[in-house]
């Protein structure tokens, strides 16, 4: 069914294309805030610099599912030999890898003026696939442990310390399992990376189906660990319970954490901790479909979106995401307060050391399913 709905959406999109002299179609996966960001902030800015150009943003739905829909559309157009409807796509890591392998994207980054500002290795490696040149990170989002310093004087520095802390403070740690949003998933993959053996292999591959058997001990421990934790309802549920003082600590998305704080939904005293060996985060990528007819305009759009000014004002200040380009390029563009707010708890160093990518696709699925089988059931 959803394909038909999507088709209707695309049809509506194409009808609007004829109106302006030039239309730049931007398809984005993710929540509504992604669409709003392009429609209300980036689009108008780009249109001002390029008179006669109209930016049209279309959302394809949250999570990997949204990126999957973009993939399905581009794939179908490639197979039928049609030109692409999208000029710029905003996608998750998993789909980016697949699209690069299937040659659905242009290799554009090397020619991009802002291309050199990127330093993180997620710009070249998307869950095990080499994507260098094909993608530009729009932002990084990161998971970390949020805690209430009134209740937790010395936050755990590692997963091992956390395990001890939970033993001594039962029902004070909460996370949302793996069905209630990605912050819980991030916590679980972090756990497997910490206690399950070869963490690097999970990030880089190659995939070996036998590896999952080595996680049994780690997952049995997690089941034990779960007896003393609260399973919260969703990403927001963890923050809710932190806010009400019902739990003292839990994994959250950093951007959500800051947004809630800014909106007064969390006390300003709340702090973050990125425990060793690390918790995963993920970028969203800007990419250009191979069959677009607006290659130049698309590249200019991405160049604007990844310029230090836009990254500072739009990504960091507005949405509390970590910048897609190296943070040091933002110094001077950002007032000190905004800079401090973002990097006070998690220093750029800590982010570099403990900010991990998610495991590669097959391991990722194996972790989720093993969790369902061994921990949840």
């Amino acid at each position, binding site marked *: 069914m959803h394909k038909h709905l999507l088709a209707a959406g695309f049809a509506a999109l194409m009808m609007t294309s004829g109106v302006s002299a030039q239309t730049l179609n931007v398809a984005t996966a993710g929540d509504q805030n992604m669409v709003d960001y392009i429609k209300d902030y980036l689009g108008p800015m780009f249109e001002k610099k390029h008179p006669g150009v109209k930016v049209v943003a279309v959302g394809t739905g949250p999570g*990997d599912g949204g990126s999957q829909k973009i993939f399905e559309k581009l794939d179908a157009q490639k197979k039928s030999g049609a030109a692409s409807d999208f000029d710029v796509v905003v996608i998750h890591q998993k789909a980016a890898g697949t699209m690069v392998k299937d040659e659905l994207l242009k290799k554009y980054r090397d020619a991009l003026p802002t291309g050199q500002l990127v330093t993180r290795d997620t710009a070249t490696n998307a869950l095990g696939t080499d994507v260098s040149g094909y993608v530009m990170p729009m932002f990084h989002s990161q998971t970390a442990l949020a805690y209430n310093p009134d209740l937790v004087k010395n936050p755990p520095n590692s997963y091992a310390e956390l395990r001890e802390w939970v033993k001594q403070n039962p029902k004070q740690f909460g996370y949302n399992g793996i*069905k209630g949003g990605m912050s819980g998933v991030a916590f679980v993959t972090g756990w497997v990376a910490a206690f399950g053996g070869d963490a690097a292999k999970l990030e880089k591959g190659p995939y070996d189906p036998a590896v999952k058997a080595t996680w049994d001990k780690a997952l049995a421990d997690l089941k034990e660990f779960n007896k003393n934790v*609260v399973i919260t*309802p*969703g990403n927001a549920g963890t923050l*809710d319970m932190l806010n009400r003082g019902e739990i003292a600590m839990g994994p959250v998305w950093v951007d959500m954490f800051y947004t809630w704080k800014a909106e007064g939904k969390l006390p300003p005293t709340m702090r973050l901790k990125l425990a060793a060996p690390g918790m995963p985060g993920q970028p969203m990528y800007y990419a250009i479909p191979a069959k677009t007819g607006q290659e130049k305009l698309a590249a200019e759009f991405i160049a604007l979106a990844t310029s230090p000014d836009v990254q500072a004002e739009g990504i960091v200040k507005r949405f509390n995401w970590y910048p897609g380009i190296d943070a040091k390029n933002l110094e001077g563009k950002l007032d000190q307060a905004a800079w401090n707010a973002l990097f006070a708890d998690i220093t750029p160093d800590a982010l570099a050391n403990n900010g991990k990518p998610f495991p590669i696709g097959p391991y990722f*699925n194996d972790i*989720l399913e093993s969790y369902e*089988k061994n921990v949840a*059931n």
Partner: protein
Amino acid sequence: MARPSFFGLLLIAPALTMIGALFLYPLGYSLAAAFTEPGGSLSLMHFQKAYELYSTDILFTLFIVIVSTILVALFSVAIAGILTLGETPWLVGALRQLYRWPLFIPFIVAAQCMRTFLAKNGLMNNALVALGVMEPIQATSFLDWRGIIITFVWKQVPFVTLMLAGAMASIDPATIEAGRNLGASRLRVLIELVLPQVAQTLLVGLVLSFVTMLSVLSVPMMVAGSQPTMLTVDMAFRINSYGDYATANALGVISYMIAGTVAWIYLRHNVKREAQA
């Protein structure tokens, strides 16, 4: 009259097509997907997987829905009973005005409200503490299986009550008076004289509630954590995270079977009644 005319068929064709396209086809498709393995041959492998991963959740779902149905029955009988047998006009009036409200609130909004209401430091516990009924230290969060049950009951009681109160209003009021006249308290009148006369309606309401609760996604997703959780959440997760429609469909078939069992109990009761009449 007996021979179907061409125009008659033409008239119902759109409806038939709709049922076929929007209901029968997807149903058949999901059944087929649940019972075939990737190669295309028949297999129970998806059920085996569903059992391996979600046996706890199957039991949890049954537990939640059965307990909720029982509570819905108790509450709706009590409310409909007060509406029918109550003798305090302002109480009956107020109850009649109030009880329907949750009917007009969607499950997802109800779930959202319950999240703030039932939390450890939520509205309910705060009110109880403020009233001096409870010490702050005793406050516990109800955002687990209890929260799901409370939300379901809160949402479904008005529905069943509406049906039940309507049925009770249409029985001969003299049958109630005859009971009281012979010395039956209002409680006995409700249980021994009124309820048996509206049992059919109660059963229908409960069956519909049972199936509704079985199929709600938002409440278990929002009110409680995911371990354990209800089958709807597992189905959504299976699709969203793995794109695994086969196992999701197998879980769907398990839901059909649970709903089907209830429907069968209902039908059997119906047949028995008709045989007696």
